């Protein structure tokens, strides 16, 4: 049994004890002199100053100090951690965890009002010793209250909540409930699940379960019917610049998840609030169909748009919002050898075929190159040409140092002898000797760094086969220590390496890009390989046209904002995301967010957030089956413990009410002190 305090800061009031100490140590002189028959004897006694005085009236002093100490102790709300107290008073108390589903599907019909009513019912059913915790869950779970038996707290917590944009996932909720109930020492532990019990939200078989002894109670707020629901699941956007206008093609996938065939309804493409294209479509029940909508829009403008269908019983998925960014091609400068002839054909064709984003390619013989086009480019390719010296070489170095991407391709035409000192400094070393593997029918690229962003798109099976390409010749490249080898041939020689230079990147390819030293250019993987290399060198990071509700906004998103970032939600609320606010935010509400710097609107960036398309599947699962997936494997096992340990300190303090006794004692002490003080005063006079 230990004594603890609910508000220990009030113990600072103990400093008031100094007052009676001061009063009792300092013998104040009466203003009126004491008339005394003779000072004959008093004069004979040496005078003593008050500094030498000791505490007088020990009884009064102790009473006053005790009263002050008890007063401070009463305000600090003491409580005793007595295990026996709780269990003796509350033998069968329940520790209830209310799991309230706040996924998007709960916005259908009156599901949400029924859910909050259910929370109120559970709260009203709590006994004196029972405690309940409200947890809201969708794809994440959050405890909204602490353990309490205050009906008002639970009801208000539920009333302030609204369905979010996330999808149903019981797993996190079960884990949180388990974490709360597992250490609980209440005799009875219960989980009340209030949900519409979508089939997609059922816990997976391998997910965590509630602790042994926990009872699961389900409250189904769905009406058991599946409402008519046509959803826009996904939209693929294609924006092509043509003359003075951009052509936007939006291909939307519509699904009829309702039980009935829909009558032909209009599908609209909305850009910046205006309907720019419409199409009528009829969807049989359970079917999915693509719909393509096309419109011409002004070039170079970011637009907020949506593909939407007519509102139905589940309006949250009737529109898919997106942000349509303008076409922004990557500027690529290819410097080649004027004598190369057709050697650059494959590279040129591959660059010309880029669409997402397109490449704006400029090919120049290196002899005619100057610093001007280098400054306009994002990526420069030295295609089998020696690294230039002089002003051009310095311009290239400056370009790379400043953040540009340089792709150095070693080929048959130029070896180590043709490289300038600037080139060696930039690439780290000269191209080495020629490796001829013609006799061995060529080598292969056998070691690829798939974790690297450049090769990451090829990591999945059937996403790019580099092993089919044969490499007959390549140059030896001794990479410097600060370079990273991204790919090697089967003999260990370096095929592709990257070296950071200042803020830029230099990638070296040792086998040429012509169909002479290898047959890679005629392999399917050549095209994406070239595109990915250019994108990587240009640091191309496409902004998603929309995000799914539940995505996290932070990091790179905020770094792009100059100044203090502020996020404006679809409902107009604003959140500062730097000093004093969170450094990341969950985009849990479908709609269009606006991210801008504090006080500025120029750099405002729109972020479209849509409901998780999986949440559009309103098929109802079996509540009992879902509950059994949460319930402990061994439901018969029970644990009983001391309830007091599970009570919160505030509850223990409220239950014990020691401060009342302390205040009562202070009152009694004050009365006694008053009597003693009067008596002492009479004696003094």
């Amino acid at each position, binding site marked *: 049994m230990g004594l603890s305090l609910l508000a220990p800061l009030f113990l600072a009031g103990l400093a008031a004890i100094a007052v009676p100490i001061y009063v009792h140590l300092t*013998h104040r002189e009466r203003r009126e002199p004491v008339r005394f*028959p*003779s000072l004959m004897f008093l004069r004979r006694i040496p005078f003593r100053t008050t500094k030498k005085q000791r505490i007088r009236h020990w009884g009064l002093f102790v009473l006053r100090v005790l009263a002050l100490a008890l007063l401070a102790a009463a305000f600090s709300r003491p409580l005793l951690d007595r295990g026996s107290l709780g269990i003796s008073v509350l033998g069968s108390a329940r520790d209830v965890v209310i799991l309230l589903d706040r996924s998007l599907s709960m916005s259908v019909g009156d599901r949400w009002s029924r859910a909050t009513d259910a929370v109120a019912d559970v709260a009203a059913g709590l006994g004196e010793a029972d405690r309940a915790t409200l947890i809201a869950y969708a794809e994440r779970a959050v405890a909204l209250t602490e353990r309490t038996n205050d009906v008002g707290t639970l009801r208000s917590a539920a009333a302030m909540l609204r369905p979010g944009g996330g999808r149903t996932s019981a797993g996190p909720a079960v884990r949180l409930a388990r974490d709360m109930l597992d250490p609980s020492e209440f005799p009875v532990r219960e989980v009340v699940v209030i949900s519409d019990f979508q089939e997609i939200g059922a816990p997976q078989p391998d997910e965590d379960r509630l602790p042994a002894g926990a009872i699961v109670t389900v409250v189904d707020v769905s009406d058991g019917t599946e409402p008519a629901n046509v959803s826009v699941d996904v939209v693929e956007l294609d924006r092509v610049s043509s003359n003075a206008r951009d052509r936007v093609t939006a291909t939307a996938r519509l699904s009829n998840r309702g039980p009935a065939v829909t009558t032909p309804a209009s599908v609209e493409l909305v850009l910046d609030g205006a309907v720019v294209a419409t199409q009528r479509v009829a969807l049989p029940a359970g079917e999915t169909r693509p719909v393509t909508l096309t419109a011409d829009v002004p070039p170079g403008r970011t637009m907020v748009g949506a593909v939407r269908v007519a509102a139905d019983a589940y309006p949250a998925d009737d529109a898919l919002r997106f942000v349509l960014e303008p076409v922004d091609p990557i500027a690529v400068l290819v410097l080649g050898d004027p004598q190369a002839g057709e050697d650059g054909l494959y590279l040129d064709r591959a660059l010309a075929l880029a669409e997402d984003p397109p490449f704006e390619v400029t090919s120049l013989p290196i002899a005619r190159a100057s610093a001007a086009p280098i400054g306009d480019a994002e990526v420069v390719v030295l295609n089998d040409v020696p690294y230039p010296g002089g002003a051009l070489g310095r311009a290239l170095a400056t370009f790379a140092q400043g953040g540009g991407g340089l792709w150095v391709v070693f080929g048959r035409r130029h070896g180590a002898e043709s490289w300038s000192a600037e080139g060696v400094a930039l690439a780290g070393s000269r191209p080495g000797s020629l490796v001829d593997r013609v006799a061995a029918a060529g080598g292969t690229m056998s070691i690829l760094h798939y974790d690297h962003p450049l090769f990451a798109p090829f990591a999945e099976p059937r996403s790019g086969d580099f092993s089919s390409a044969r490499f007959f010749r390549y140059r030896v490249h001794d990479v410097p220590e600060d370079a990273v080898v991204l790919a090697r041939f089967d003999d260990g020689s370096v095929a592709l390496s990257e070296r950071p230079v200042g803020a830029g990147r230099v990638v070296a390819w040792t086998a040429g890009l012509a169909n002479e030293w290898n047959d890679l250019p005629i392999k399917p993987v050549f095209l994406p390989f070239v595109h990915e290399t250019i994108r990587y060198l240009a640091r191309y990071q496409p902004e998603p046209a929309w995000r799914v509700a539940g995505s996290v906004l932070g990091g790179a998103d905020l770094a792009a904002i100059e100044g203090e970032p502020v996020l404006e939600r679809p409902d107009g609320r604003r959140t500062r995301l730097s000093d004093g606010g969170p450094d990341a935010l969950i985009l849990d509400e479908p709609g269009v967010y606006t991210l801008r710097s504090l006080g500025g609107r120029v750099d405002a960036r729109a972020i479209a957030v849509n409901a998780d398309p999986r949440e559009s599947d309103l098929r109802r699962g079996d509540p009992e089956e879902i509950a059994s997936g949460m319930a402990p494997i061994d439901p018969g096992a029970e644990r009983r413990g001391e309830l007091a340990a599970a009570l919160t300190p505030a509850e223990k303090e409220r239950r014990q009410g020691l401060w009342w006794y302390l205040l009562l004692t202070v009152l009694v002490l004050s009365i006694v002190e008053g009597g003693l003080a009067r008596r002492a005063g009479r004696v003094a006079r």
Partner: protein
Amino acid sequence: MTTARFLDPAVLARISNLELLARTVVDGFISGLHHAPYLGFSLDFAEHRAYMPGDDIRRIDWRVFGRTDRLYVKEFEADTNANFSLVFDVSRSMDYGSGAVTKLDYGRYLAACLAYFSRRQRDRVGIVTFDEDLVEIVPPSAKHLDMVLHTIDRIVPRDRRGGLDRPLRKVAESLRRRSIVVLISDFYEPPEVTQHALGYLRNKQCDVIAFHLLDPSEIDLPFDEAAQFEDLETHERIPVVPAELRAEYRRLVALHRRALADTLGPAGIDYYFIDVSQPLDHALLHYLSRRSWLSRVR
């Protein structure tokens, strides 16, 4: 109402008539001492002796002559016509009391009782009041009881310092014959000064009884708060922290009382200390015992 209650100073303070007070106290006190060994000390018969020529024939006990046919003369123990002088300190320091009565009041009651009592013994009673000098003098006389009581009744504290040497010297000079002198004072003088002053009376062959009156507050110094203490006579002020000085003060007072007793006793002066919160019977009893002793030794 019991007699003992009339001996309580607080009760006596309600009686405005001093003679009535004295009579009430003394008569009640005497009746209460009915079986005490001090009864009949002054007029009591002592012995018979054979008649000698020259003896006053009025003292012949004729009843004894009738029974024995011999002449015998009655002898009595004491002189019943002694001078009884009250010497009362009326200095400002006597006007102090923490309880119902001041030292002056208590001394007034005591003096009245003693005067009345002495008159009953056919003594000639007189009174002298003094502070640093004589204030009022009523010479001892058999007819002066009323004057003595009147003088006692009119006593007011004088705003003057007290002293023993000068007034007692004058008192001694004024005494014409051997007297019983009762001195009532608070004796705020060094013991040797007191002894010297009382020596004037002793040199006149007077029987001196010194009643030392002190208030309980003067004995215990029960004050609590630190304060300026002002001397009633000199108006001098000194800062005093009673809690700190109390023990030493008590020791000094006790030492003073002991010194008075030690110096006056050997000088033939009867010293009796009185706490004015105590009933009068202690003082009266002491006086009676002393008077009885004086009667025997004379």
